[in-house]
């Protein structure tokens, strides 16, 4: 009885979150948690807000009022690895989704619904009240949701290279029991890798104006969980 009731809830959640085309599979996760690679081939960020949430019919369905999330991703497409640093403010647990977890990258442009491709561990509530998570996942991926037409998990066949090829075609979000369609959602945008080459003459070096060099991690990167810096194959 309990399992039946739970199944009904999950299926309801599936309909709310992803639409009738997708249902939970309950399959075990295929992706693996891995250590952070030595280098990355791309980086993406998304500012997720409640007003970006779209229901399966493509209708704006505002999520948790006042909430927002910062979703930073670094990718090594050669290894099919994606590292995530996620902070979400202003939401209330529990998380809820028909997928394996409730925090995802979906494939769809801004203003459109689309299937999940990667399911990330849900952020964990911190003493401050914010929810945070970080780590790295290596494909192949599964989401725990299948396409009803194909019977195939929506993560199967997906590689992180697809994000590099067209980041605007992907969004990230997290779902809660209070906002099963999505508490916050944001479209991915590519950000540069490495430092900026904005000097060529050496005339500004060694002057009294020099600022102290900040150690790695000082600043927003640490608070957002970025932590480790990026090293592009090509010199930045």
């Amino acid at each position, binding site marked *: 009885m309990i399992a039946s009731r739970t199944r009904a809830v999950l299926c309801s959640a599936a309909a709310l979150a992803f639409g009738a085309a997708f249902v939970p599979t309950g399959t075990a996760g295929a992706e693996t948690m891995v250590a952070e690679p030595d280098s990355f081939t791309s980086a993406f960020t998304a500012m997720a807000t409640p007003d970006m949430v779209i229901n399966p019919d493509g209708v704006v369905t505002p999520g948790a009022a006042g909430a927002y999330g910062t979703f930073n991703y670094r990718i090594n497409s050669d290894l099919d690895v994606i590292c995530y640093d996620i902070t979400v403010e202003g939401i209330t647990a529990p998380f809820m989704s028909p997928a394996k977890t409730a925090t995802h990258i979906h494939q769809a442009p801004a203003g459109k619904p689309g299937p999940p491709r990667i399911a990330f561990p849900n952020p964990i509530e911190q003493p401050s009240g914010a929810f945070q998570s970080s780590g790295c996942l290596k494909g192949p991926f599964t989401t725990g949701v299948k396409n009803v037409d194909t019977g195939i998990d929506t993560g199967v066949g997906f590689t992180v290279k697809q994000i590099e090829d067209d980041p605007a075609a992907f969004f990230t979000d997290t779902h809660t029991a209070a906002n099963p369609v999505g508490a916050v959602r944001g479209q991915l945008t590519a950000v540069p890798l490495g430092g900026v080459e904005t000097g060529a003459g050496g005339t500004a070096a060694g002057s009294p104006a020099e600022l*102290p060099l900040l150690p790695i991690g000082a600043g927003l*990167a640490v608070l957002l969980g970025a932590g480790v810096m990026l090293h592009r194959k090509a010199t930045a």
Partner: protein
Amino acid sequence: MTALLMTMIGTGCAADGGRATQESRPPATAIASSASQTPTTAATGSADPDLTTAAGRTIDAGRATQESRPPQSSTTPITPPTGPSTTTTLVPTGPSAPSTTAPAPVSLDVDSIGISESLITLGLTAEGAAEVPTDYARAGWFTGGGRPGTIGPTVILGHVDSKTGPAVFFRLRELQTGVQIRLGLADGTTATYAISAVDKYSKDDFPTFAVYGATPRDTVRLVTCGGEFDRAAGSYLDNVVVTAERIA
């Protein structure tokens, strides 16, 4: 929607049987977050406006600022502060969706260091690095980031020098907290910001998300080169990053 739910529960979902139960699902994995690292940057309390005084925010501003705003990094002042009081009240900017329809920045003015320039547009190189102006006298904004009036940082890049002498952002390192920056916008309006931090980062360990990453506030970042100059490579070893928050 009710019909849809009933259909799912009675058909597709039922086909999954007991597998679609909570018991069969792997729980979310608890993982350590690098956010637990302790920033070593010193706070400049007087330069950090009290964001909780910003009226009209729709979020818990106090909590939000602890987690999502960059700490105010230490700097080594070389000139007396030339800007306004550092207690300037920030303009409320409750979170809303990033917008590509907000007016683009078209000019940059920093009176204290004599900058008054029109802006060009910049993107990513084929290798994924930041595109920089080919003209050392010009500054440009990264179009993949935020825009004034929306959340996310508006990032503006300019050279500190060329092979023949100082360039557009040569005096950027003179800036201090509290100094005002003005961005002229495509709609004819002006957005004003107050500097909250001047930082320097090694290019080898450049904190991409600290500079370009999403923010819950209307923020501007000015970026140029600094530090030691590697003459063999023809490149500075560090980047100077000036961060400013919207005040008007």
